[in-house]
């Protein structure tokens, strides 16, 4: 099975390359493109820690197959299915072409994104939208940010659950995020002919599922330290390390900071719970970041105890080190 996945990965890469080349990204513009892709992520990391990996504790398997596969699928779906229209809006030669690409993108999001009406009224693709929306993303930064978080936290949870149970938990968390969003997000109130008065805005992205993975991580390994990219942390280190090095010659500089996972919980809560309550209190939602889905997906972590390996569960219950 693992060899099959590896072969698929190797065969898919040429397809990805050709796709990228076909939309006309030249070398220089490609570099600029990559920089612009990473820049928003780096800018957000100035204020909020961006987790890169965790450190220490026991490991079961050295290769996170399912985490890697999920990342691969997400990337493939974006590049091969959504990428044409997404890149099309940026590389179109005329305004009409750009509009056409944008229109196509919107149609796709509204057809396959998670929509409350699909569930309540049994239309469109119905409950399948819970799964299709999980693998769609609104842009490269959206995709990259989610995949970074998935890589940082998903591996340990896959360790703790085993590959298949982790996949089940991931899908479960994504579903819970969608359900929570559907129930708690007020519809968009629109007064326009031909448009339903209470319009459900489609939701796409793996954020809800990843919030669940993150919540599970914090529940299972609250004392674990996570290596993060964090501007404020680097600033603090600069204040301490630089004088130390100047006066004593000791102290080493690192670009990353190691933060206990419970601190990340605090940041996550501040970043999501408060906006969620604001959204719920409003009569109409316009869109943007679906913080309600993040919050409810996070709560899905409580179910992690149904998915973890039995030996790890017993150790957790008995208070022993995981």
């Amino acid at each position, binding site marked *: 099975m693992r060899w099959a996945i590896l072969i698929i990965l190797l065969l898919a890469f040429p397809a990805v390359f050709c796709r990228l080349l076909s939309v006309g990204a030249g070398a220089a513009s490609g570099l600029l493109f990559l920089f612009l892709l990473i820049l928003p992520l780096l800018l957000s990391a100035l204020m909020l820690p961006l987790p890169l990996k965790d450190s220490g504790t026991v490991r079961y398997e050295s290769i996170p197959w399912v985490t890697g596969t999920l990342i691969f699928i997400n990337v493939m779906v974006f590049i091969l299915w959504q990428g044409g229209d997404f890149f099309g809006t940026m590389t179109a030669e005329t305004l009409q072409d750009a509009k056409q690409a944008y229109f196509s993108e919107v149609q796709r999001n509204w057809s396959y994104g998670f929509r409350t009406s699909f569930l309540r009224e*049994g239309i469109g*693709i119905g409950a399948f939208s819970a799964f299709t929306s999980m693998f769609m993303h609104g842009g490269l930064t959206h995709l990259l940010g989610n995949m970074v978080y998935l890589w940082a936290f998903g591996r340990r949870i896959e360790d703790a659950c085993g590959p298949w149970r982790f996949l*089940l938990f991931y899908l479960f968390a994504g579903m819970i995020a969608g359900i929570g969003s559907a129930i708690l997000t007020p519809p968009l109130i629109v007064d326009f002919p031909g448009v339903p008065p209470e319009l459900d805005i489609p939701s796409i992205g793996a954020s809800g599922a990843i919030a669940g993975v993150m919540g599970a991580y914090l529940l299972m390994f609250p004392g674990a330290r996570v290596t993060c990219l964090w501007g404020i942390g680097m600033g603090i280190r600069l204040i301490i390390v630089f004088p130390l090095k100047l006066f004593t010659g000791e102290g080493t500089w690192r670009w990353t900071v190691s933060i206990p996972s419970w601190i990340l919980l605090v940041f996550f809560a501040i970043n999501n719970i408060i906006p969620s309550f604001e959204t719920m209190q409003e009569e109409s939602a316009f869109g943007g970041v679906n913080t309600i889905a993040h919050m409810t997906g996070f709560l899905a972590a409580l179910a992690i105890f149904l998915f973890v390996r039995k030996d790890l569960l017993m150790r957790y219950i008995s208070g022993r080190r995981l």
Partner: protein
Amino acid sequence: MDAKTLYNQGVAAIRDRKDKEEGRRLLTQSLRLDPNNERAWLWLSRTITDPQKALRCVERALNINPTNPAAKKLQQHYRTQLTGGGAGTVTTGAVSLGALATSKRPKTTRAEHKKIDLLMSRAQKLMDVGRTEDAIAQWVSVLDIRPDHEIALREAVRNLMKLKYADDAKELVNRAIAAGSTAPSIYLTAIDFAKRDQNPNRVDELRMALVQLPKADDELISRVVDDYMRVGDHGPATDILELAIHAHPESQKLLFRMGKLHEEMGRDEEAMQYFNKAAKRGGSKEGREADKMLQNYRPVLTDRERGSTSLAWREAAGFGVVFLMMGFQDAGLNFLSMGARWAGVILSIIGGYLIVTATSSPQQQPLASWLGGQVPPKKKQALPEEVQRGQAFQEPTELPILSVYTRAVFGVIGGVLLIIAFWLVFSTALGLLSNPKDFFLPSWDLIFDESVLLP
């Protein structure tokens, strides 16, 4: 003439005729024939004006007989002369650990460098013509200037050993150490000598000094540890490694080695800590090995966990909640409308249980016993692939396990039930695939009408 005669004549020359030169010559010849004559060494020391050289002779006597009171007095006398009456370095035998710790020997002057070069060149020429003893004398002269000159020492020791002057060689090595040498090779040679003398305390002291040297590499330190491990001395091996790690805190190899040592001693917690440290420090081979070793410290399944039916049902409940959420969505976010989907949820729990039993809980009791399971045979030694998979340290089991055929049947039935469950819980969505219904999609005008901006 024999050694004794030469010795008597030498002593007579010194005592009766006050001829130190003659006495030195005769005693040197005597000692070549019989290097274990401690009294000859003491008499020889009296013929030498240089207190450092004299001290060496006295220390040779003490090596032969550490309890010789005259030798001890002379040693103290010469040490006092050398250190100017101060405490100086502390020596045990001929190993000066104090000198090692704060090794700040005086810098060799340019003139001394020149002299050393000249002596080395002379020594080489003498060796080329086969005059080994004279060459040795040149090297010894180099060592008089710089006792820790590595090349001179190596050559002198090697050739002295060839000529079977082991004690002389040992003396030179000890002098180099006393002078604060930081060359690992010198310490290794000293260790060999100490082993030859069957002096285990000295061996330990030298090893401890060796592993703290800045130039001591990980390979060398590992060999020292292996020496202890070969004879089952875990305690000194641990001490050595601790000293080495203190001196080389960034060394993954040493951290990994310490982890292995603790693992061999059955100290799992300590082993895990060291493997963790080694794994954290980066992607070297030892770091990856440490990471692999950490896999061996996974929680160990006990028979209580293996045989637990409730834990298996817990996993099946995981299937249940997933299918429940699927059914809830498919029913329009209304539990009351789920209808037949509840049957799907129940089937998913049963199907999930069968799959769990087939895969991760084949030893549930009393199920495995009822279905004719057999207790698996005990394995004597873990196979390499089991170590690789982190299964080397599984607790042995006394519980019967379902046969492969039974597990296969359970798996197939469980899979079929899950498929049926999926069909039940996702009935509406599956129906939409064959019978799609229209739904609202933003039109072109709606998207690009500035009065209505839809996301």
